[in-house]
C-alpha cells in the first residue's frame, strides 16, 4: 500500500476521538481558525481549486456548487442555508456513520468553514431516522463546541456567528435526495421536488440552500489547512483526494477504508478488504452502493476506484462508495430480488413509472426467484426498467432501474436458466441440465 495522508479517518481508532479534547490534540478547529481569517471568496476558491467532488453519489464539484448561490442582492432578503446530508441510506453504504461516530468535530469544523464561505448563519445536519444514536453523539459534540465558543456568536473573535443543529428524519431512503431532504426538514412528507428551481436558488424555506454530504464537508478542514495543491496531489486529475469506501459482502475484512481515488479496484479488494474467502472466485462487485450497475470480474480487473474509470470500463458509477462484493456462491436472481425489495418499498410514490414500476419489477423477480416466471416476464422486467430510468422527478427511478438493467444483461444466463427450469417444472433453484 502506498503512503498517503489519511484525511477523513485521521483520528479514527484513537480512544475518545469523538471528544473535543482528543480531537483538538490532533489539530481540530485549526482549519476553522485559518478559514475565518480568510475571506469567503478565498475559502470557496481553495475548495474549487482542490477539485473536491460531492461524496454523496453524484460527484458534482463542491466548489462549483457553492458558486451557484445567488449574490446577496438577488436573494430577496432571504438567508442562505447549509444542510448536511447525513441521511445515509443506500444499501451497502455506511461511511458517513463512521465519520460522524468517530470524528464528529471534523464535520462540525467543515460546516463552520463552508458556512463562512457561503454566508450561512444557520445550518442543519439531517440524519436518517435510524441514526438516533449518532445524533446523540453529534449533539454532545455540538454542546462541547458551543461551550468553547467554537459555535454561536462571534466564533474565534472573527465576527462570524453561526448556529448548527441536528435534525432527525423519520427513516426514508428518499430523504437522502436533496429536495426530499428539504421537504422533510420543512415538516412535509419527504418527497423530491421538481427542478428547476434548484435548491441553490430556492431550497429550504424558499431560501438559497446548499446540500452537502457528510464526507464532503468533513474533507474541507484538511483542504483548508493543507492547501488545495496538497489535496489535488492525491488521487487522479479529475478525481482528486481520498474517499471512504464501505466494503461489505464476501470479503475477509469488511469495513470502511479511506483510499486515494484512482486506486485499482483489485487492490481495494485484495489489499484492504483482505480478498475473497479462501477457495472462492469473484462473481460480481457493485462498486458504489446498491443503485449503481453491477460489474463483472473482467470489468473489475480493469477498473480503478475513481469517478471516470468505473464509468468508462463498466458504465457504472463510483456513487457513494458502497463496495459490495459477491463471490461464486451468490445467486444473482436472489441478489437482485433482495435489492428490488428495498427499492419497491422505498419509492416515494410520486411519479407514475417509479411508483408502479419498482413494485412491479419486484413482483416479477419474486416469481422468477420462485420458479414461476416465463420468458415474457424476463422481457417485461427489462422493459420496465428501461421505462422507469430517467423518466421521473428524481434519480430514484434510475437507481431502481440500473441494478435490474445491469444484472439481467451481465448475468443473463442465470435469469434465463431460472425461466428454463420453471418451464421444465423443476423446483426453484434447480437448473436444466445442459
Amino acid at each position: 500500500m502506498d503512503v498517503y495522508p489519511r484525511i477523513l479517518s485521521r483520528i479514527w481508532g484513537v480512544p475518545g476521538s469523538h471528544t473535543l479534547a482528543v480531537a483538538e490534540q490532533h489539530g481540530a478547529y485549526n482549519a476553522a481558525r485559518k478559514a475565518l481569517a480568510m475571506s469567503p471568496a478565498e475559502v470557496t476558491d481553495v475548495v474549487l481549486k482542490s477539485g473536491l467532488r460531492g461524496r454523496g453519489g453524484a460527484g458534482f464539484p463542491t466548489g462549483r456548487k457553492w458558486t451557484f448561490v445567488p449574490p446577496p442582492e438577488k436573494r430577496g432578503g432571504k438567508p442562505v442555508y447549509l444542510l448536511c446530508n447525513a441521511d445515509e441510506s443506500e444499501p451497502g453504504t455506511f461511511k458517513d456513520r463512521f465519520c460522524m461516530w468517530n470524528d464528529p468535530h471534523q464535520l462540525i469544523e467543515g460546516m463552520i468553514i463552508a458556512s463562512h464561505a457561503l454566508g450561512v448563519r444557520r445550518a442543519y445536519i439531517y440524519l436518517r431516522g435510524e441514526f438516533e444514536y449518532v445524533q446523540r453523539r453529534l449533539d454532545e459534540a455540538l454542546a462541547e463546541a458551543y461551550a468553547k465558543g467554537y459555535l454561536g456568536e462571534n466564533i474565534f473573535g472573527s465576527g462570524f456567528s453561526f448556529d448548527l443543529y441536528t435534525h432527525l428524519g423519520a427513516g426514508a431512503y428518499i430523504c437522502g435526495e436533496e429536495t426530499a431532504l428539504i421537504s422533510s426538514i420543512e415538516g412535509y412528507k419527504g418527497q423530491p421536488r421538481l427542478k428547476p428551481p434548484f435548491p441553490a436558488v430556492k431550497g429550504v424555506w424558499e431560501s438559497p440552500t446548499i446540500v452537502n454530504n457528510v464526507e464532503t464537508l468533513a474533507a474541507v478542514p484538511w483542504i483548508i489547512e493543507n492547501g488545495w495543491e496538497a489535496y489535488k496531489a492525491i488521487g487522479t486529475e479529475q478525481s482528486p483526494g481520498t474517499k471512504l469506501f464501505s466494503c461489505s459482502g464476501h470479503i475477509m475484512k469488511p469495513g470502511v477504508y479511506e483510499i486515494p481515488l484512482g486506486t485499482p479496484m483489485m487492490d481495494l479488494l485484495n489489499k484492504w478488504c483482505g480478498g475473497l474467502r479462501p477457495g472462492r472466485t469473484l462473481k460480481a462487485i457493485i462498486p458504489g452502493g446498491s443503485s449503481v450497475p453491477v460489474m463483472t470480474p473482467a470489468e473489475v480487473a480493469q477498473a480503478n476506484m475513481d469517478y471516470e474509470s468505473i464509468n468508462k470500463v463498466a458504465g457504472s458509477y463510483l456513487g457513494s462508495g458502497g463496495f459490495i462484493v459477491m463471490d461464486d456462491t451468490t445467486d444473482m436472481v436472489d441478489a437482485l430480488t433482495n435489492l428490488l425489495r428495498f427499492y419497491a418499498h422505498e419509492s416515494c410514490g410520486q411519479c407514475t413509472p417509479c411508483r408502479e414500476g419498482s413494485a412491479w419489477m419486484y413482483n416479477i423477480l419474486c416469481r422468477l426467484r420462485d420458479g414461476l416466471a416465463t420468458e415474457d416476464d424476463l422481457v417485461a422486467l427489462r422493459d420496465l426498467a428501461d421505462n422507469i430510468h430517467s423518466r421521473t422527478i428524481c434519480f430514484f427511478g434510475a437507481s431502481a432501474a440500473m441494478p435490474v438493467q445491469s444484472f439481467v444483461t451481465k448475468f443473463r444466463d442465470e435469469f434465463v436458466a431460472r425461466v428454463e427450469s420453471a418451464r421444465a417444472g423443476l423446483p426453484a433453484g434447480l437448473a436444466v441440465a445442459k
Partner: protein
Amino acid sequence: MPLVKVNGIAVEVPPGTNMIEAAKKVGVEIPHYCYHPHLSVAGNCRMCLVDVEAGGRGPDIACNMAATEGLAIRTDTPKVTQMRKSVMEFLLVNHPLDCPICDQSGECRLQDYYMEYGQHDSRLADAKMGKGKRQDIGDQIVLDAERCVQCSRCVRFSDEVTGTGELRLFNRSNQTQIGIFPGVRLSHQYQGNLADICPVGALTLKDFRFKKRVWWLKESESVCGGCATGCNILVHHQENEVYRFTPRRNDEVNKSWICDQGRLSYKDVTSLKRLTGAKVDGQRAELPEAANAAALLLKGAKVGVVFGAKATTEANWAAVKLVRARLPNARAYVIEGNDPDAFTYQDEILVDSDKTPNRFGAALTASQLGSVGDAEALKAALASGEVDALLVLHDDVVGRLGVATPKALVYVGTFKNATSSAAAVVLPAAHYIEQPGTWINRQGRVQRLRKTVAPAGDSVADYAAVDAIGRAFGGAVIPEMPAAIFQELAAGVKALNGLTLKGLGHGGQLITLFAPSPGVDQPGQAAPAK
C-alpha cells in the same frame, strides 16, 4: 416574448408559459393528468414527457418546462410515443378497470389516453393492489381510491383553492393511496370541483353517480344565475332533461370552478316551485289571455315598473320599450337586496353576497327612463297612492319590501314566491338555461345565456313575456330574434354601445360600467374585478 417551437411550428408565448399551454396554441395536445392550468405544477404523472430538440435537456415534462427563447420540443417522435405508452401501462397496472360501473366512463383520461396512446395488452401476471372503494368523504363526494392515478390534483385543489387541506396521498411506493385525514369530512362549498378535476373516476359527485352515461349528454354553454359572480357553466342535458351543471373555464370570472350551490341549482329547472303556466286572478290561463289581462290592469293606471336583477337585460330592455310605447307615465324602480329564499352563504373565492346575476343590467336599462327609485321610494309611492299598479320582473318585490302591494300586480317570473302569490296576473318566464339573453355580472362583464333546453310548460323567454304585454296593447315592443334585441339594446344603452351578441364570445365582454345607481347616465367607476 420568447419564440419557441413545437414539432417545428414556431409560436410566440409570454415568458414562463409552460410548454403544454404553448403547444395548445399551435394545436398540439400534450396529454397530461396532474397538470391543471389553475393549480400548481406537480409533475408527477409523467404523461407529458416530450423530447427536447433545442434549449434544454430531454426528455422532460412539458408542464414544468418554461418557455425560453429558442426552446424547441417534439411530441411526434417514436421516443415520445413509447414514453406515453409506457406511462399508460404503469397507470393501468393497478387500476381496477371497472369502467362498466364507473361514472367517469366516457370522460375519463385513462380511457381516452389508452385509446390514443396506449393500446397495449396487459403484461401484469400478479395480483392488483386493492384499495378502499366507495368511501363517503364528504357531503357531495364519494372516493374510490383504487381508481386513483395519484395525480394529486385534488390535494392541490384543497390546499391552494379552498385552503382546507383535507386530502392527502398517504403511504408511499405502490401502496400510495389518496385519502382524507381521519375524522375529517369535506364540508366546503367547492367539493364538486374535485370530481371535475379528477381525471379518472376516483372522485365522483354523489348527485351524478349512476344517473347517466355521459356520452348521451349534450353540453351547452350558459352562465350560472346563483349570484352576481356569473360563473360560466356547461349545461349537460339529454332529450330536454338537465342532468348536471359543470363549470366552464373562464379565467377572468370563475377560472375552472363553481360552487356546489350553483352546481346543484340545475335541480331548480324541474323544481315544483316553477311557474309553468300563466295565471289570471289565481286561475290558469293561456298566455295571450293573461297578457291581455295584464294590459287591462296597467292601462291608465299609475304604473310602477320594477326592473329585475334576475331578469335578462333583454327583458329589462323590453320593459323600457313597453313603458316608452304604452305607459309613458310609469315610474322605474330597482329594488336592492336579495329575495328572502336566497341562500345566505358567501365567500372570497366565488360566491358573492349579491344573489342576483344581473343587477347592473337592471340598473342600466331602468336608468334609460330617467330617475330610478329604490325600495324606500317604492314603499312611499305605494303608501301615497302615487303608484297603484306594478309590473315586476323576476324579483320577489313583496318578499323584499315586506309591505302590501296593490291588487293590480303583473308578475313575470320563473319561480313561485310571495310576489307571484300576490299577483293578479302571472306570466311564466323560462328558466335562464331555457332562453337566450345576456346578464351583466359584478365585474361589468356582459355574458351570454343560451337556450339549452325547451322552456318548461307554457313558460316563455322573460323578454317574450314582457313583449306579450306589449302585443296585448297593440303591437310588439321588441324584435323577435335575440341578436336583434341585443342590437337595439346595445344601440340604446350607452354603456353597451358597439357590442354585438356574437361579439360577446364564450367569455363575455367587460364594459366600462356606468354607475348603476338610479337615474344617473354618466360614466362611473368600474366595479372592482373580484
